[in-house]
């Protein structure tokens, strides 16, 4: 326990000081996207890891937040804070509607319904010009400016994404021990039993989905600030699947996995292109290898390595404490 905390503290220190010693490219183009993609994937980890609901619509919800922000700030010319509120509200409300439609089904059927909903949103964005801007989308979206600095300036944006990433991660971890989170894990294991304890299982599924939409919306806002534009491409089928790939690579059941998977994903998409043109094949192979060799994702591998390391260290240094663990 203490050693795990020590490791977490070390990791946090590295992340906090990263802009001081990391290259500008790694800070701005690798870690920053990894953080906001991580937040979107985290909304899936929450649903899948706690609630057993694998959704493919998380990128759609993130994208809708981006559209909401873009529409309010660009098309309607409203200030950024109204854009943020509108973006989050749109993502949350869309998740509520998606949830009401999807939660009656489970497993692969749930997955397929969320894909269908995602595709409906994609088609709508692609064809509607007045709000979504059609095929072009909404261009020239600007991040908020505070004290004369745009929030997307490299170092500032890195710290913003890091802070929001840590906050959402902390929230999801905290949620596990709350009545809401416990009931969510219980319905993953046995929805019928949860029902005969007095819980409205369908309502709880909808609530969890809505909450995940809010989280995805936060990630979506950071994404749209980073890109400075949003178009239907942001929420096409490939992008939807990418979020699932990220979460599975990292370990679907782990909140940490969302960020770990996002980092690996961003690294592969950035560097695979320098030695091969088939980076989708690379991602596909990475995905396949993870699913085949460690269904728990990289988090599973990391946990196993860590416990192995801890055990060998402890037996060497203090064999008497071995039984205490």
């Amino acid at each position: 326990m203490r050693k795990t905390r020590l490791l977490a503290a070390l990791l946090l220190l590295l992340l906090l000081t990263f802009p001081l010693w990391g290259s500008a490219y790694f800070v701005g183009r690798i870690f920053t996207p990894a953080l906001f993609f991580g937040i979107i994937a985290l909304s899936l980890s929450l649903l899948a890891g706690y609630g057993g609901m694998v959704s493919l619509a998380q990128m759609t919800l993130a994208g809708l937040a981006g559209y909401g922000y873009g529409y309010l700030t660009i098309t309607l010319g409203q200030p950024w804070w109204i854009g943020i509120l509108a973006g989050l509200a749109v993502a949350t409300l869309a998740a509520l509607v998606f949830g009401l439609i999807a939660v009656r089904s489970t497993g692969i059927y749930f997955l397929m319904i969320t894909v269908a909903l995602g595709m409906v949103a994609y088609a709508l964005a692609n064809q509607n010009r007045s709000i979504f801007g059609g095929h072009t989308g909404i261009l020239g979206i600007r991040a908020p400016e505070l004290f004369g600095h745009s929030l997307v300036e490299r170092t500032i944006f890195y710290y913003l994404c890091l802070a929001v990433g840590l906050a959402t991660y902390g929230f999801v971890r905290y949620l596990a021990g709350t009545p809401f989170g416990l009931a969510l894990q219980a319905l993953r294991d046995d929805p019928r039993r949860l029902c005969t304890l007095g819980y409205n299982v369908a309502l709880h599924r909808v609530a969890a989905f809505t909450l995940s939409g809010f989280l995805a919306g936060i990630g979506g806002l950071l994404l749209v600030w980073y890109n400075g534009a949003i178009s239907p491409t942001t929420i096409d089928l490939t992008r939807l699947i990418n979020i699932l790939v990220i979460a599975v690579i990292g370990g679907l059941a782990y909140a940490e996995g969302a960020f770990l998977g996002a980092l690996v994903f961003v690294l592969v998409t950035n560097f695979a292109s320098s030695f091969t043109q088939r980076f989708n094949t690379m991602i596909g192979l990475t995905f396949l290898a993870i699913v085949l060799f460690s269904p728990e994702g990289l988090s599973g591998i990391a946990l196993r390595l860590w416990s192995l390391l801890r055990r060998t260290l402890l037996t060497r240094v203090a064999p008497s404490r071995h039984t205490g663990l």
Partner: protein
Amino acid sequence: MVTVELHRSQTAARALELQGVSRRFGGLVAVRDVSLALEPGERRAIIGPNGAGKTTLFNIITGELRPTAGIIRFFGRDVTRLPPHQRIRLGLARTYQTPLVFPRLSVAENLYLAVRGVQPWRLSLRRPRAEDPERVEVERLAELVGLRHALHALAGVLSHGEQRQLELGMALASRPRLLLLDEPAAGLSPGEREQLTALLFALDTEITVLLIEHDMDVAFQVAQRVTVLHEGRVIAEGTPDEIAMNATVQQVYLGGT
């Protein structure tokens, strides 16, 4: 008007009342025109051979299955159309033939969920604190069913008997007015059976108990009245002694069909 009031007060006295309840699965009639009335505080056993429709009847009472015909009243209130979670909140609790607990949650968390399930704000986003009344209640329940030592163990690693104890604790957590126990003694060792019987005897006498039991010792010890189900029908009802002497029942149990 007077007769209506009279009728209402009569039915209100009943903890549970089934009127002509049937359930078909396609061509199969699992429960056929069953009527049953339990007085508050009564201890009733349902016995019958395999496939007699006992568990189906439980599922109908909790609402997990809709009856194809008939009316279910719970303390005078018609609950026939009410979904299970709302019936549970009215003071109904059950256990299952194979214990249903949440294997990846701890014993304490299982009990906590059961306590919270009948309270408002059951989906709160605030973590429980040590001094919360619900947490105190969890410890009392663990003590009651003999799982105090295993509070932080995962429910999935408990033995079959311990899972039964946990499930009983979860059923009692909602402070039910009517407790449905589906074969509580199945798969228990003789020692565990004695503990169970003692626990059932020690239950608050205001709690109405309906139990399905194959073990006649447990059933006849705990129950004041016994209902015999056979091929979905009630074929006999009476005190344990009357049932033990009943010729039809003997024929069903000993003489094949």
